[in-house]
């Protein structure tokens, strides 16, 4: 082994330091000119797996399709995803790993817990714009979470859409009465205070609030309370499926005519199908157009064409549509930022996101949308009719 003298050691150290100092701008420059990485931590397994596979496939297929079209501003996209199992520690670890390894300007997470955990880091990094399938109301706040947005209305917004529908369904001067049934979780409680305020504003009497565990076994006592409160509409939130079907069945058994209403994660057809007969006549808010909507639109036709190329691809689900929509929003952000010859930094991408207004999604939403509030305050009420789900209102813009 050749002995290293002091001069050679210092010289090589200086050379290494010089290379390192050159390396940072070089890597930054590559990030601004090479392929664009989109990171993701989709919940492909775990309790949110029913949605996670569709979310992952939707965004993944959109990236593939977009690359087939030549990418964005001449740059190819690369989708780097790892299953989070819907565990916050795991999705946070995946986020940190992908950010450290690939420096993605855009990231698709998996939950409210994840979004809240990484919000301070997003602000500190100032280089990543993130989104996820959570519609927690306090995440749609450009001041507190400047680098986070959601691909739909907040849970509060969804309840507002339902209340608007209830208000518009009034036959006379008296507004129909509603009851809120929600899970004793952060998810369940999220829109209740604002929902009650909105109901008061619209003159809708809230005759009962029922709090349950998610998936509660026995709801007999709760149904007794509902029967005595006599609501016209029962709004369920904070659940995916159970115990909504049992509520609906027991309400029918008790001779109640109240209509059940749900929010986005109850309203996918795969979940509604599991309600069986209990789902008949169920109403709910869905911000997106269903894949089986009879009105033909270009984006839904494209989703069908691309999604159906692969076997067992869940392209018919609203989760897939959400993943695809996230890709389309990413395209808008990237296109607007790069089109203005700006670097893909957090502030630049945030400005691009907030500049999206009167944007036609090609049919996913039936009206032009804006992302100024970092959410999309639009939804439509659907009705479960036979074996399908049909629109039961116009597209309602709230806020």
């Amino acid at each position, binding site marked *: 082994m050749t002995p290293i003298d002091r001069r050679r050691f210092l010289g090589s150290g200086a050379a290494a330091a010089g290379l390192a100092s050159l390396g940072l701008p070089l890597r930054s420059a590559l990030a601004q000119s090479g392929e664009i990485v989109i990171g993701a931590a989709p919940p492909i*397994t*775990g*309790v949110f*797996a*029913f949605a996670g596979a569709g979310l992952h496939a939707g965004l993944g297929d959109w990236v593939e399709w977009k690359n087939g079209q030549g990418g964005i501003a001449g740059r190819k996209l690369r989708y780097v995803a790892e299953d989070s199992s819907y565990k916050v520690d795991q999705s946070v670890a995946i986020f940190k790993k992908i950010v450290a390894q690939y420096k993605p300007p855009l990231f698709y997470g998996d939950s409210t817990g994840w979004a809240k955990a990484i919000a301070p880091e997003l602000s500190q990094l100032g280089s990543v714009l993130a989104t996820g399938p959570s519609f927690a109301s306090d995440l749609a706040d450009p001041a507190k979470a400047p680098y986070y947005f959601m691909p739909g209305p907040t849970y509060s917004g969804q309840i507002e859409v339902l209340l608007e529908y209830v208000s518009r369904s009034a036959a006379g001067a008296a507004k129909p009465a509603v009851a809120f049934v929600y899970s*004793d979780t952060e998810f369940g409680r999220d829109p209740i205070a604002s929902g009650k305020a909105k109901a008061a504003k619209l003159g809708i009497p809230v005759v009962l609030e*029922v*709090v*349950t*565990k998610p*998936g*509660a*076994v*026995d709801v*007999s*006592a*709760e*149904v*007794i*309370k509902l*029967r*005595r409160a006599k609501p016209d509409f029962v709004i369920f939130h904070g659940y*995916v*499926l*159970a*115990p909504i*079907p*049992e509520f609906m*069945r*027991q309400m029918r*058994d*008790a001779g109640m005519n109240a209509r059940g209403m749900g929010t986005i994660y109850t309203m996918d057809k*795969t*979940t509604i199908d*599991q*309600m*069986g007969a209990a789902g008949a006549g169920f109403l709910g808010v869905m911000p997106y157009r269903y894949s089986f909507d009879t009105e033909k639109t270009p984006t839904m036709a494209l989703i069908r064409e691309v999604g159906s190329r692969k076997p067992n691809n869940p392209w018919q689900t609203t989760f897939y549509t959400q993943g695809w929509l996230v890709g389309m929003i990413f395209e808008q952000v990237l296109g607007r930022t790069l089109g203005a010859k700006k670097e893909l930094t957090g502030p630049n991408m945030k400005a691009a996101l907030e500049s999206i207004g009167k944007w036609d999604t090609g049919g996913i939403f039936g009206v032009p949308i804006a992302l100024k509030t970092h959410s999309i305050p639009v939804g439509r009420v659907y009705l479960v009719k036979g074996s399908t789900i049909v629109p039961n209102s116009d597209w309602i813009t709230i806020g």
Partner: protein
Amino acid sequence: MSGAIDWLLLAEFSLVGLLSGGVLALIALGFVLVYKGTRVINFALGEFMMVGAYLFWTANVFLALPWWAALALTLAGVAALGALVERFVLRPLAGQPVISIVMATIGLGAVLHGLAEAVWGGANLSLPELLPRKPLLLGEILLPGQVLWSFALAVALIAAFTAYFRWSKDGVSMRAAASDPVTAYAMGIDVRRTQRLTWMFAGVTGAVAGIIVASMTSLSPSLGTVALGVLAVVILGGLDSIAGAIVAGLIVGLLESLTVAFVGGQARDLVPYLVVLVILMVRPYGLFGTRDIERL
């Protein structure tokens, strides 16, 4: 609101609560059977419920067998599972500290949960409605059909087990082996066989409870967590008392219902277990449990 309506409300919630306690008592019976027979708290009971419900779904919905054939296959399946667990998990641990056996049942629960997720996936499945739903109207009081029938089923099963332990030869052998295994062995009772039977019966009660619970809600691997909530019922009744399981099930059902009525759903879990805690401070061995006396 007039006083008369208040009394009606109280009567309605009380009746529904007592009837709902039937399913709690049935789940509690699964814990009691194993504890009575082997002195082990089976933390995997919830997973036995879940596996039973999945087997029933597979036979009845997936294979489209009639409900009675599906039920027979399910009960045979969980009984076999109970026997396998006794032979390959519990018997090798005979003579080991109780904590080791408890940990083994917790581990077994995790394995069954993981296996169920691997075989049937994590999605919610629906079981067909098995019990009649027509409610019973007593004036203004409405008793939901499935609550009424699940109570009747639980009472019938508990009565059948009580009769079996009281009058059948195997039942008497099981009681003898549970009470004093060494003397029972000396008297010619096959203690291993009685312990195997205990686990098989616990599996069967768990499966029936699992099918009832899943048909009222939905079926997913998380169904097993229901049983852990019933553990307080078992402790209140006394770990080794079938009568205790029934009474405690009814008490907790009643308390849960009255809590929903007069306090609110968020306190549903809290108030009944506060009452359980107070009762246990006075009777630490439960309402009907055997009072162990240790002399030094």
